[in-house]
C-alpha cells in the first residue's frame, strides 16, 4: 500500500503535467482560434457594412424614385395610392364588364350635338367597343321622351345630358341610377348630387348685356337700370312663361331680398316696360343688332359668341347681382342595360380630358373648376366674381305661380 501510496503523487504529477500540457495546448489553440475568429468577424462586419451601405443607398434612391413617381403622378399619401390602384382595378373591371354589354349607349341631350360631338368622339376612340348614339333635342322633349318611354316600358335612353331644371324632375321621380364618379370629387358641392345621381357637365351662366355703340356706361345698380331713361330700350327673356327668365328672377329675389326685389320689379314694369322675347338667344341678338340697348337675362355663352364675331356687346351685372349659374348635368337612367358603359361615359365627360374638349368648343363653359380650356369660366369673368347656383328650390317649385304673377303685374301682354 505504501508503494502504491508513494507512486500516487508521481502519477498525480504526471497526470497533472499531462493535463496541464493538454490544457495549455488547448488554451493556446483556443486563443489562436479566437484570434482568427476575431479577424474574420471584423472582416465580415466590414462586408455587412458595405452591403448595408449599399442597401440603404439603394433604398434612399428607391425612395427618391417612388416620391418622384408619386410626385409625377400627383399622389401625396399611401392611402391615395391605394385608392388609385383600387380605382384602376375597378376601372379595369368596369371596362371588362362594359365589353360584355351591348356596345351601344343612347344619350338624350339638350346640349346641341355639334357642341358635344368631339367629346363623344374622343370617348369612342378611347373605348372603341362602345358606340354612342346622341339624340339632340330641347329639354321639354327630353322630359317627354324619357318619362313616356319609361311609363310605356320601352326604355331607350341609357343617359341624359340635360339642363338641370329639367333633369331635377327626373331625380325627383327617381329615374336616375346613383353613381358617384371618381371624377366628381373635383367638383364643388353645388355642381353634384351627394348621392351621385347627377353631376354638372356644362355651365350655363346668365348675365345682362348692353350694346357698346349705344350705351357708354351700363347701369351700375338695379335702381339705375329701372330709370325711365331706359323706357322702350330694354328687352328681356319672357318671364311670364315659367322658364329661364322666371326662375332667374325668383332666385334673384331670394338673393337680394324681398323688398329690394319688389321695388326693382315694380319700377321695371312701370318705368321701363321691357319688351319680352320667347327665346333667350334672341335677347342677345337684338341687343347686338342695336334694336335694343340693354338685354336682361341672356346666356353668357351667347354674349361671348357674338362678341367673338365682332358684335358691339358686353355683359354686365349691377352691384349685388351675382353671376347666377345653372348647368346641364349628366346622369344615368336607372333602367339602363349598360350600366358599366354608361359609367365609363360619365367618368369621361367629367374627367379633365372630357371637360377640356367641351371647354375648347366655341362657346361652351366646362363645369369642372380646374379645367384649363379656352372657355373656362375663369378666363371670361373676373376672379372673385360671386357665382350662385340657380334655380333655387322656390324657383323650381313656384315658377308657374310667379309667371302668372308677373303677367298680372303687366309684364308682356298689352
Amino acid at each position, binding site marked *: 500500500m505504501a508503494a502504491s501510496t508513494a507512486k500516487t503523487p508521481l502519477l498525480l504529477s504526471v497526470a497533472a503535467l499531462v493535463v496541464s500540457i493538454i490544457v495549455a495546448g488547448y488554451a493556446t489553440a483556443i486563443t489562436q482560434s479566437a484570434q482568427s475568429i476575431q479577424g474574420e468577424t471584423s472582416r465580415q462586419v466590414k462586408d455587412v457594412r458595405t452591403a448595408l451601405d449599399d442597401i440603404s443607398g439603394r433604398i434612399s434612391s428607391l425612395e427618391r424614385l417612388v416620391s418622384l413617381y408619386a410626385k409625377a403622378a400627383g399622389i401625396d399619401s399611401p392611402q391615395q395610392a391605394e385608392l388609385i390602384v383600387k380605382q384602376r382595378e375597378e376601372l379595369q373591371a368596369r371596362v371588362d364588364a362594359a365589353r360584355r354589354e351591348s356596345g351601344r349607349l343612347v344619350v338624350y341631350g339638350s346640349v346641341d350635338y355639334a357642341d358635344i360631338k368631339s367629346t363623344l368622339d374622343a370617348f369612342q376612340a378611347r373605348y372603341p367597343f362602345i358606340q354612342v348614339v346622341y339624340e339632340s*333635342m330641347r329639354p321639354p322633349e327630353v322630359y317627354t321622351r324619357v318619362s313616356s318611354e319609361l311609363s310605356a316600358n320601352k326604355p331607350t335612353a341609357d343617359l341624359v345630358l340635360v339642363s338641370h331644371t329639367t333633369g331635377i324632375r327626373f331625380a325627383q321621380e327617381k329615374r336616375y341610377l346613383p353613381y358617384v364618379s371618381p371624377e366628381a370629387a373635383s367638383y364643388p358641392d353645388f355642381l353634384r348630387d351627394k348621392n351621385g345621381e347627377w353631376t354638372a357637365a356644362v355651365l350655363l351662366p346668365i348675365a345682362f348685356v348692353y350694346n357698346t355703340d349705344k350705351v357708354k356706361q351700363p347701369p351700375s345698380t338695379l335702381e339705375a337700370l329701372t330709370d325711365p331713361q331706359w323706357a322702350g330700350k330694354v328687352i328681356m327673356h319672357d318671364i311670364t*312663361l315659367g322658364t329661364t327668365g322666371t326662375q332667374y328672377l325668383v332666385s334673384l329675389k331670394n338673393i337680394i331680398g324681398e323688398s329690394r326685389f319688389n321695388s326693382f320689379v315694380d319700377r321695371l314694369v312701370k318705368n321701363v316696360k321691357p319688351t319680352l322675347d320667347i327665346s333667350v338667344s334672341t335677347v342677345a341678338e337684338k341687343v347686338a343688332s342695336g334694336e335694343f340697348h340693354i338685354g336682361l337675362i341672356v346666356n353668357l355663352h351667347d354674349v361671348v359668341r*357674338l362678341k367673338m364675331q365682332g358684335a358691339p356687346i358686353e355683359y354686365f351685372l349691377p352691384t349685388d347681382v351675382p353671376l347666377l349659374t345653372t348647368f346641364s348635368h349628366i346622369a344615368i337612367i336607372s333602367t339602363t342595360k349598360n350600366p358599366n358603359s354608361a359609367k365609363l361615359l360619365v367618368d369621361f365627360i367629367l374627367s379633365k380630358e372630357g371637360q377640356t374638349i367641351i371647354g375648347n368648343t366655341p362657346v361652351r363653359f366646362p363645369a369642372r373648376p380646374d379645367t384649363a380650356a379656352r372657355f373656362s369660366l375663369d378666363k371670361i369673368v373676373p376672379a372673385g366674381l360671386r357665382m350662385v347656383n340657380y334655380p333655387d328650390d322656390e324657383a323650381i317649385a313656384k*315658377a308657374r305661380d310667379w309667371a302668372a304673377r308677373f303677367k298680372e303685374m303687366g309684364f308682356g301682354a298689352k
Partner: protein
Amino acid sequence: MPRTTWQPHNLLIFFVFVVAGFFILQPAAFLLFGSVWSSPPGRPGHLTGSNYAEVLRDPFLGRVLFNTFVFAAGSSLIAIALGSTLAFLATRTDVPFKKAIIYSPILTFAMPSSVESMGWTFLLSPRTGLVNVAFMRLTGVEEPLVNLYTLAGMTLVMGINLLPVAFLMTAPAFTLFDRSLEEMGRASGGGLLQVYRRIILPLVLPSIASAFIYCFIVAIEAFDTPAIVGIPAGVYVLTTTIYTQMVSEVPPRYGTATAYSAVLLALSLILITLYNRFAKSADRYATLTGRSGGSAVISLGKYKPLAAVLVLGYLLIHPIPLMATLAVASVQRFWNPDRLLTNITLDNYEKFFSYPVTGTAFINSIIVSASSTALAVAVGFLAAYFSLRRKLTGGQTFTTILSIPLAIPPLVLAVGVFWSVLYVDIGLYGTVGALVYAYSLRYTPLVVRFLSGPMLQIHRELEDSAVVCGGGRLRTITNIILPLLRGAASTAALYVFVRTITDLGIAVLLVTHQSTVLSTTLFALWNTGEKLTVVAGGLVYTVVLLCFLLAAHRLGFRVLQPTTR
C-alpha cells in the same frame, strides 16, 4: 248619279275608311284624353275637368280669343284677296311677269316660316329694320315708318306668309274653266271687271272658299309668326299660349295645353262643317264639261297697267326684298344694319354643311318627304273623290275626320302621334315610319283642300259619259279625273313635299339618330341661337328647289298650267 248600293268593293272601301279613320283619330284621341286626365296619358291619374276649368279661369282668355280671331281672319283675307287675284292674273290673262308671279310664291315657301318671319323683322323692326332705318336716315324723322310689333303687323306678315298657299290653291281653279261662259259674258256686253265679278269669281268661289278656310285654319294654328312677331309685341294668340305650356315648360302642362287645343279643334270643326255645307251645292259650280276645250287667255285691255302695277307691287313687296334680305343675312356674322359691309362671312353655310348629321339627314329627308307626299296625295285624292264625286255613305264624314289633324298645332300633333306610336305599338316608334305617319296626317287635309275645288268643277257628265261608254270606276278615275286634276295634284304634291322638308319642330319628338331629318338639324341650330345658319340652310333649300323646278320644267312638268294660247 244614284246612290251606290252595297257591293263587295264598297265593303272594301269601308274597311279602308275604318282602318284609316283609326290612324287619323288616334293621336287626336290621345290628346282629347290628355285634356280630361290628371296626368299625361299612360301614367296613373284620374278623370278631371280641372284643365278646362283652368282654361276658363284664365283672365287673358278673352283677349287671346279676340287676338286669334283678328289675326286669323285678317291674314286669311289678305292672303286670299291678293293670292287669288294674282292667281287669276298669272294663269288667265296677258299680264307681264307671269312666270315670276307663278314661281316666286313657290320659292318663298321653301323657307321655314320661322325664317320668313325673321326676314320680316330684319326689314321692319322699328329701329333696325332696313326699311325703317332707310326711312329715318333719308327723312331725318325719328319715328319708324312701320312698326312690325303690333297686332296689325303680325296679321300683315302672316297674310303675306300665307299668300303662296292661297295662290297655289286657287290657281288651278282658274285654269279649269269653260271658256264659253266667259265668251257669253263678253258677248252680252260685259266689261272685264263685270265678267270677272259676275262669271269668273262665282265659278271659282268653291276653290276660294276652301282656300280661305284652309288659310284661316293654318293661321289659327300657326306658331312661328305669333312667336317671333307677336310675343315681342305682347300679342298672344291661342297657339302661343298652348306652345308655351306644352313646349317651354318642364314638365309640360299637357292637361291645359290639350284643353286649349280642344278649344282650337272645336273652332276648326265648326269651320269645316260650314265649309262642307257650302260644298254640298257643288253641282252648281261644275263648269268643266265635255263640250269645250280648255280656257283662253283673257286680254286685260285698259286694265293692263293697273294689273302690271299690282303684280310689280307684289314682287317688290314680298319675294324680292324678303329673299334679298335673307340672302344678305345669310352671309352676316350677326345682324346689325350699321355693320352690313364689315360683317361678311361664309361661316353660316359652312356650319350648315358641316353639321355632324347633315348627310344622313339629307337622305332621310328625301325618303320621308317623298313617302309622306305619296301617301298624303293618294289618301287625299281618294277622300276628295269619294266625298265629292261618288258620294259614298260615310265619305263626307271621312273627309271631316281627315281634317281633324289640321286643326291641331303641329307640335301638339307631334305629341299626339308620339303617344300613339309609343303606346299602341305597331312597330313605328323610333323609325322613319313615325315621321311619315305624322306628316301624312298633317298634310292629307291640305291635299283634300287642294283637290276639292278643281274636283267640284269637273262636270258629272264627263264621268257619266265614261260610264256610258263602258268604262269602270277605276278607268274613269285614271282616264278622266286624274288627267284633269294633274295640275292641282302636282301642285299639291310639290307643296306637301317642300313643307314636310321644311317643317321645323314636328319631327323632333319622333326622330331617332337613324331617322334624323334635315329639319331637325335646322331646328337644333335655331334653338342654339345659330339663326343665321338656319337662314343659310333655308336659302340652300330654295336654291335646290329652284334647280328642281327648272329641271321639271325642262321635262315638260308644269307646277301650274298657265293658259298659253
